[in-house]
């Protein structure tokens, strides 16, 4: 993970500091008197004595800008801070306590929002008379509700989180929970709110001064300067430019500073999100003609690389596997083993930050042609996806579109690849939903995803995946999010479909027991490599890699046996051990294991292991 980008604060921070320093130091600077008039030199152009020129009364503009900054900045900052303190406190209390206190704090603030802001400011100014202090009070009242609403919403979202409940469970007082747990976690949006408020307050201060309700002339403020310059806009337009530049420049740098401050305060800063579901630009490859055609799918030496700011890392290395029609291959491994990336790579759905650097994926299509999916142009790949190759994802909740009826979503998949009328596709969709065991399919096809249970959604996903009779189905943890009784139903459903067609199935999972049930062959992955491959029954009965053996031993089955946990954790792809990737955690590791990488070697026909010592552990 990258270090926190504190350096990104330097530039805007320095500018803001400079602006504030100059405003504070105004009395000490060798400036002309900002209120001293020199009528003969009115509207004079910039000169050596008056760098920015002179205004309609001949006063020095530079001096007025700097002295004006004092008024504008002071009013803006004070009101933003006061509003922030009051508004945040009310929002936190309302959001945490709910009930009666919520009405008192949050709802009363919302009543203020109902007034037009200028009208409210005018009211306060009229009651209290113009002046900087009045402005601060008026702006505080105006801007407090903004903070309250932001703080309230953030508190509502945070108070239900486990770490807040954990504080309650520890016996912490509400005040402590609010101050030490909730406040720091709702601070980022409040910082943004603060920067917006300062900017808005500066603009409104200028506006009110412009109307003659704020800072009292002849004292300078940016709003008053804009007001003065307006009357002479025809003769001296540059006079309007200076205060406007000062205003926008200050606001922009200030917003920058607050934005970056928020990023820096985020403890997880530096992990930028990546766009999804977009194939990286096709690279030109020396395409070797597919020599021996596989029966359905053969992956040869697949290696995936991610470019990070610091290094190029390879989360999947040298993965080779093959699949025959009607066969089920399980890819099993823990998180970080690269099993999901391998599945996405087969679909050509790697995120754009990743690319396949070596390897081939040979797939035999319906016409019997072997095609290399790695080098296939995106348009042809799109033709295969959803048609000959389909995928089912782990979370059925987020992989169905929430705003479309499920029947339409299944019909969509059919129409994308078949020339079929809307009604024909709809009828087929209903038939498919019936096949996957959705109760009352005619009615249910008109339901939206949120109206279905998790198991029903996964059935729908499977219906969409098998809609065009794919030759290859990749299922990525399709039952992990489901309850065991529902998982049993889905596994049975997949087994029934496999029996009816010669579809090949790649089943990605972390659950060994599920593998035992559904798969013919299994590939055990660890830290980006396949460490063992073979027929399920044989691998489970006689594992030939210490990792597989340890995984089986650590499954909490059996009545009495002590659980054999694997010490340590999976190495990160940017910090792989020099020798065998499993050596640091391996109970059987010897000298050579730490020095060199073992080759993936056959231990018996159809059963291979990546271990130097497989004979000894057998």
């Amino acid at each position, binding site marked *: *993970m990258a270090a926190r980008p504190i350096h990104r604060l330097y530039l805007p921070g320095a500018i803001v500091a400079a602006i504030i320093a100059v405003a504070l130091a105004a009395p000490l600077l060798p400036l002309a008197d900002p209120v001293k008039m020199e009528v003969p030199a009115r509207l004079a152009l910039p000169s050596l004595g008056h760098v920015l020129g002179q205004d309609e009364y001949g006063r020095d503009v530079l001096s007025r800008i700097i002295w004006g900054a004092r008024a504008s900045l002071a009013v803006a900052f004070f009101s933003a801070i006061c509003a922030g303190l009051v508004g945040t406190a009310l929002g936190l209390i309302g959001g945490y306590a709910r009930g009666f206190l919520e009405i008192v704090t949050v709802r009363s603030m919302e009543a203020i929002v109902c007034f037009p802001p200028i009208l409210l400011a005018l009211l306060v100014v009229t009651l209290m008379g113009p002046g900087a202090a009045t402005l601060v009070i008026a702006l505080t009242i105006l801007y407090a509700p903004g903070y309250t609403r932001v703080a309230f919403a953030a508190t509502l979202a945070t108070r239900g*989180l*486990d*770490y807040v*409940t*954990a*504080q*309650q*469970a*520890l*016996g*912490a*007082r509400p005040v*402590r929970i609010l101050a*030490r*747990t909730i406040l*720091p*976690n709702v601070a980022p949006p409040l910082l943004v709110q603060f920067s917006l408020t300062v900017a808005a307050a500066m603009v409104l201060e200028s506006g009110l001064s412009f109307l003659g309700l704020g800072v009292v002339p002849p004292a300078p403020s940016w709003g008053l300067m804009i007001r003065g310059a307006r009357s002479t806009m025809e003769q001296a337009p540059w006079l309007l430019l200076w205060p406007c530049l000062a205003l926008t420049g200050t606001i922009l740098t200030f917003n920058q500073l607050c934005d970056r401050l928020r990023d820096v305060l985020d*403890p*997880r800063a530096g992990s930028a999100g990546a766009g999804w579901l977009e194939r990286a630009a096709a690279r030109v490859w020396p395409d070797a003609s597919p020599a021996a055609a596989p029966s359905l799918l053969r992956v040869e030496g697949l290696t995936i690389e991610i470019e990070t700011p610091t290094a190029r890392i390879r989360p999947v290395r040298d993965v080779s596997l093959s699949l025959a029609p009607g066969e089920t291959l399980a890819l099993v491994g*823990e998180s970080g083993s690269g099993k999901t990336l391998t599945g996405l790579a087969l679909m050509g759905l790697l995120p754009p930050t990743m690319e396949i650097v070596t390897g081939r994926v040979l797939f035999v299509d319906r016409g019997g042609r072997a095609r290399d999916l790695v080098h296939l142009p995106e348009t042809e790949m799109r033709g295969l996806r959803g048609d000959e190759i389909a995928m089912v994802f782990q979370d059925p909740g987020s992989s169905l579109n929430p705003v479309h009826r499920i029947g339409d979503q299944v019909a969509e998949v059919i129409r994308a690849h078949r020339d079929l009328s809307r009604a024909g596709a709809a009828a087929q969709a209903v038939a498919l939903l019936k096949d996957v065991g959705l*109760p009352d399919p005619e009615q249910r096809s008109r339901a939206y995803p949120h109206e279905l*249970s*998790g*198991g*029903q959604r996964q059935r729908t996903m499977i219906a969409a995946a098998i809609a065009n009779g794919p030759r290859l189905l990749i299922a990525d943890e399709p039952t992990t999010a489901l*309850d*065991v*009784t*529902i*998982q*049993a*139903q889905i*596994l*049975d459903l997949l087994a029934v479909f496999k029996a009816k067609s010669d579809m090949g199935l790649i089943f990605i999972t*972390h*659950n*060994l*027991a*599920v593998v*035992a*049930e559904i798969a013919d062959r299994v590939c055990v992955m660890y830290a980006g490599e396949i460490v063992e491959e073979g027929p*399920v*029954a044989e691998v*489970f009965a006689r594992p030939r890699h210490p990792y597989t053996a*340890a*995984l*089986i031993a*650590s*499954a*909490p*089955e*059996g*009545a009495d046996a002590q*659980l*054999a*946990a*694997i010490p340590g*954790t*999976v190495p990160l792809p940017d910090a792989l051990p020099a020798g065998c990737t499993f050596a640091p955690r391996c109970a059987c590791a010897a000298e050579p294991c730490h020095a060199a990488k073992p080759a993936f070697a056959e231990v018996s026909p159809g059963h291979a292991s990546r271990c130097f010592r497989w004979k000894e552990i057998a």
Partner: protein
Amino acid sequence: MTAPLVRAENVSRSFVSHSGWLARRAEVKAVREVDITVGRGEALGVVGESGCGKSTLGRMLLHLLPPTTGRVFFDGHALHDLTPATRRRMRARMQMIFQDPYGSLDPRRRAGDQIADGIMIHGLADPIEARARVADLLQRVGLDPAHGDRLPHEFSGGQRQRIAIARALATKPDFIVADEPVSALDVSVQAQIVTLMAELRSSFGLALLFISHDLHVVRHLCERVVVMYLGRVVEEGDVSEIFSAPAHPYTRALTAATPSIRSRTRSRKAVLSGDLPNPAASPSGCVFHTRCPHAIASCAENIPALRQIAPGWRVACLRDDIVAQHG
């Protein structure tokens, strides 16, 4: 059974959900009329599928969620009757471990500070002593004491769960509710945490309410188990007895549906049909009758009471003949 430490008497909890602009008010009865007891130093497993109310029950035992009806006693005190301040003091003796190690730690505070929270809140030690205690706790949960200075995101899921366990142990509690503490972890790490919890449990003499959907894990860690379905306890008893010869049709379906590495063939006929009913519109009579292969007409009308079929073994099923077939 050992002397009771925590006792829930007939507790129920319902949630009222306002479903958006249609303004329908639906009452979801998450937990209904549950009686359970956890003895001193005893580990009680609570097993069931999503929506069965097991997490709600766990939170009620700690009074993090007050029960709608019924009472919870901790060491003889009715939690509901205590003043908030007394209850807060009592919290030093009962703690919680959450499912999601990513959500249960404050992302902005150092691991060591979070572990020390309980000690500081209850004034159990001065800051210097607290630091030493935190270092000791980190060591006991298998982490490097120097790592107390790190932020949560610098740890892996398993390590975070160790931190959460250290935080729960900091006040030397008598009772811990662990809500699916290993479900979010990888298999190999799961085994580490289960082993750690078993170890710590015996060395600290903890009573444990271990909530899980994984029968195998419960079997490893607990002496007794409660099986829940849609807010009700359907079976309760000794772990090994129940899992080797489940008496309630739901427990049977649950054990049959759980795949196993060792036996490749799950009995296909035991697969339950249908989905879990919506808890807002739960079935009349026995909550399980809509999916039960043995349901008869009276199951839809009468709510079966828990009744004893052997010492310490209770089942809620109307079909005596089916229950009698167990084992």
